[in-house]
């Protein structure tokens, strides 16, 4: 993603943001805000799935933990500063990611996926059981719009929430891009392509994957915390492992591109909203979409397009490369 086209991309995003902000009704602004938060969830998982090759289903655990961190702080301890909330949410989720990563990163592929799914279910169970802290399955009420301390006022108007969510998503995209292009990012992609070769070169591969896991956990906490501030409420539904599956759908539709998961995230949340408006059988249609996406497998499709495109670019026709799938 060359620097120049990225700059244009960001500028276009900002213009679109300003237009939407003033043009839309409060209701569609609120759905947009939820969609932008969904995009953040997708981006945080793409760091793991696309670049580190870790098919993790634990994203809901970090997304929900971020939400609960700010929720508990606001409802139980009256801490309503937005920046402190986001910071603490990221730290708590990062810690949880460290613990889960240490245990689950000893396994690979389908095993790793099943274990991360089990952990998400465990964290959900914890939220339902620990009624004194989390309010159990009725969730936590009494979370008022946070103050933006250095800036005056509170994050309360639909326009304000929309703008903040959009800026947060843009920043998350830039962070993922920065990590992808950094030395750390390249090592991660190297480990994804061939862990044994990178180990033979001297890289402690599990440590790098743990680093990616913790970073992705911290990134997922930001949209999680924003969701809680938007809803002024947090409940175990935010920790449900179905959210991990939804995040995975966003990444797979994003097809391994850099900002694909963000757009896919916004699209998936809006899709569910529109489907529910038009049919009672929205779950049936959603299920069909999941199956279709699984069969099309966009990452492999894009990979094939890239190799053909690369071949046309090079003068000498190379041999037919074996089809590579994002593992």
């Amino acid at each position: 993603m060359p620097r120049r086209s990225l700059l244009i991309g960001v500028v276009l995003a900002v213009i679109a943001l300003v237009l939407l902000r003033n043009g839309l009704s409060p209701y569609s602004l609120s759905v947009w805000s939820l969609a932008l938060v969904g995009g953040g969830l997708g981006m945080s998982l793409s760091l793991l799935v696309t670049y580190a090759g870790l098919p993790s289903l634990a994203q809901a655990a970090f997304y929900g933990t971020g939400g609960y961190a700010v929720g508990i702080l606001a409802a139980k301890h009256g801490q309503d500063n937005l920046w402190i909330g986001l910071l603490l949410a990221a730290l708590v989720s990062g810690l949880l990611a460290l613990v889960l990563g240490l245990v689950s990163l000893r396994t690979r592929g389908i095993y790793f996926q099943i274990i991360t799914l089990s952990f998400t279910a465990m964290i959900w169970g914890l939220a339902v059981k620990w009624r004194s802290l989390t309010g159990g399955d009725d969730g936590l009420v009494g979370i008022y719009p946070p103050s933006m301390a250095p800036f005056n006022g509170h994050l309360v108007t639909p326009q304000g929430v929309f703008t903040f969510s959009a800026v947060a998503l843009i920043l998350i995209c830039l962070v993922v891009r920065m990590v992808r292009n950094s030395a750390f990012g390249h090592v991660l992609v190297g480990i994804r392509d061939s862990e044994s070769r990178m180990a033979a070169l001297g890289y402690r591969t599990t440590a790098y994957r743990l680093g990616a896991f913790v970073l992705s956990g911290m990134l997922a906490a930001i949209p999680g915390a924003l969701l809680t501030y938007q809803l002024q409420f947090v409940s175990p539904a935010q920790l449900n492992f179905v959210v991990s599956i939804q995040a995975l759908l966003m990444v797979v539709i994003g097809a391994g591109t850099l900002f694909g998961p963000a757009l896919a995230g916004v699209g998936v949340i809006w899709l569910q909203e529109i489907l529910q408006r038009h049919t009672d059988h929205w779950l049936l249609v959603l299920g069909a979409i999941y199956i279709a996406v699984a069969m099309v497998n966009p990452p492999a499709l894009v990979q094939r397009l890239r190799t053909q495109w690369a071949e046309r670019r090079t003068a000498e026709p190379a041999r037919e490369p074996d089809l590579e799938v994002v593992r």
Partner: protein
Amino acid sequence: MRSRTWAALCVSAAMVLLAGCSGTAGGGPPRVDGKPAGSEVTVGLVAPSSGVYGLYGPTLGGMMKGVFGRDGAESGVTFLTEDDAGDPQTALTKVRKLVQQDGADVVVCCVNGAATLAVAPYLQGLGIPQIAPIPGPGGLDKFSTAYSVGFHAQQLTKPFGHYAATELGYKNAVILASDFVQGHDVADGFKAGFTAAGGTIVKELYPPLDTSDYGPFLSQISDADVVFSFFGGADAVRLVKQYDAAGLKDKAQLIGLGPMVSRLVLDQIGDAAIGVQGVFHYMESGMGNPADEAFTAAASAAAPPAVTPNFVQANAWTTAVVIEQAIKDSRASGASLLKSIAGVSVQAPWGPFSFNAETHYPVLKGLLYEVVRGPERLDHKVLGSFDGDQ
């Protein structure tokens, strides 16, 4: 080094944008008092028609549509329904749609306790009355716009605890309730009433929601003359059947809060339910008053025969009647719809209905009944009644 400057540029741009989005309104719940019912009133129902609570949406929607749509109903009332799939986030989105896009004047929400509590602050901010249709979470008195046609557990279980120890003469009780917030509400209420009246709680067991095998809990029930419990839906079917299969029926009398042996699950439990007693505000086998007859006639048209009439339909019917009456009063007196709802008084299938001003929950009496083999299907027989708490 260009990347460092580039990153700084980007962050500063973000800061400028952020400054633009801090609203002025202070935190905390602004207080707004609603407006009177105009010529056109829109009533919005948010309830799940998919997922774990999928049963409730169609039942509530069908009954309320019947009441608002019947000939002779109050004019100018449009009724809309939305599916929240039992998820608080979706419920809030649907409530916002109803209020901002469809201009709802009254919102009936929700079934899942978490969703009811999630939308309450939002509706209070706009001064739009909210009515929770079925028995649900406590704590709605914190919101000036939230009222509940459904009782909250302790309103019945606390006085019943007292009634059980005194009138029914039970000495040692075991509490067996699903391990979720409402389950503990039910248990705490009964424990308070029962111990205050001299009874002793032998053991408290809280199986997790969706427990498939109650064997480990049932095997711990010993030297108690009554087991007070609260389970709903599939848990109720499994618990009552496994309680019967474990031969505990003759050891200790099983008494459950209404939903455990309601018409919704009675047919599925079958003969295992015979002899089990229920504590509820309404007896689904008929209360013999004109409102009940009107309701039963309306209900049988709206749902599968095996499960009709049931308490969800009764509460839905009452919610619709309450709203209609409040609209009539508000239009006549010019008072705000919210005040009319607060002060409404109508005939519910279970008797006279009105809200308690401070607690926002209904004033009601408790009924004790037993499941018996009726002429064509299982029925409830009243054993006694007691006053509900306020």
